[in-house]
């Protein structure tokens, strides 16, 4: 059922296949849309990071590009005052629960948040919202890597790597709302769980939450 469609993103005309997700079509054509939780092969995206909003002509409300399938003659705008405001708020909410000591972070200069901030002119500061002050657990039980939850953005890339690529099922989301965390069954340290330490989750982490110990800075 691959049917060719033509869409317009930011005045750029793009030919693609029907059924493709808007976010990936844009990225493949070098049009940047901020995203953290999007996974290309996932048929039903979580759309939980709320960063990939775009406007589609003829639709009242902005939509998340990761979950929107392209349609013929679709006209998409990735920037507008409304979109920028939404993305800024989403970004700031993520930062309000993120350890902002970038200099101490192993992912400094190789971080999805830093990239989004740079491309969209956002600050890596949490001015508008009060940062959440709470205790985060550091799990440094695995031999080669560690998991610092103070940097976790709950994007789910590690969970996908663990399930689909590694086919283990050691980590997953637990809790609800503000208490949601990525953890193991019974909240055991990774080394005591069924984790095989394949490190695919470390490679998948877009920030510095899962990191190799040899990259550690502080």
């Amino acid at each position, binding site marked *: 059922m691959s049917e060719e469609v033509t869409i317009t993103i930011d005045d750029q005309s793009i030919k693609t296949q029907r059924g493709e997700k808007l976010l990936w079509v844009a990225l493949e054509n070098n049009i940047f849309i901020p995203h953290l939780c999007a996974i290309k092969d996932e048929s039903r995206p979580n759309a939980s990071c709320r960063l990939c909003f775009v406007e589609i002509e003829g639709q009242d409300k902005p939509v998340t590009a990761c979950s929107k399938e392209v349609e013929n003659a679709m006209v998409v705008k990735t920037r507008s005052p409304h979109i920028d405001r939404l993305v800024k708020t989403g970004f700031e909410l993520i930062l309000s629960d993120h350890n902002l000591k970038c200099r101490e972070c192993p992912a400094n200069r190789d971080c999805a948040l830093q990239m989004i901030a740079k491309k969209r002119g956002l600050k890596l500061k949490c001015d508008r919202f009060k940062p959440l002050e709470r205790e985060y657990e550091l799990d440094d039980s695995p031999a080669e890597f560690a998991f610092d939850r103070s940097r976790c953005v709950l994007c789910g890339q590690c969970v996908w790597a663990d399930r689909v690529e590694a086919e283990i099922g*050691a980590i*997953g989301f*637990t809790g609800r709302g503000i208490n949601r965390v990525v953890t193991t069954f019974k909240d055991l340290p990774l080394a005591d769980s069924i984790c095989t330490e394949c490190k695919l989750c470390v490679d998948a982490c877009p920030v510095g939450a899962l990191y190799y110990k040899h990259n550690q800075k502080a």
Partner: protein
Amino acid sequence: MQLLEGEKEEILACVKDVLGGNSKTQENLIPILQQVQKKLGYLPTMAIEKIAEGMDVPAVDIYGLATFYNQFRLNPPGKHEVKVCMGTACYMAGGDITLESFQRRMEIDEGETSQDRYYSLGRVACVGCCTLAPVAVVDDQVEGKVTPTRVDGLMLALEEGRDDNSSQQPDSSEGDNNE
């Protein structure tokens, strides 16, 4: 939480029974957990492990589900159950202080059960008598204006009812099953 004598067998039999009575599809997971909890009074981690095995899903997924929904409890109900109201009125009237007082006196956190299973402590959203705020429900009995001093009084009454022979003793041979 340490398992009681014979509890392991009870859990295994219960899970086997419930899994046998339901088709093992994803949409049946919540009903299965509900049935197990109805029979056992709570969801022991051992039951979660066995359900995960039986349904061929990662145990952490079921654990995630059980921690997501308020209806599931991972600790057994204590002989005396205290629920502190955290509805708007009770919260404004110091419900969090009431909860903290109970936590300190019982030496357990919210959602937990004491090792001897004498106390369990939880929170409720609203019990419908906001004029009495802050409210606590002690063994289905609504108590109003529960200040820390009142908590001391309630705890004293509960402690007086404690009969060492009647409280269930954990079976040490089972080892810890709920870290």
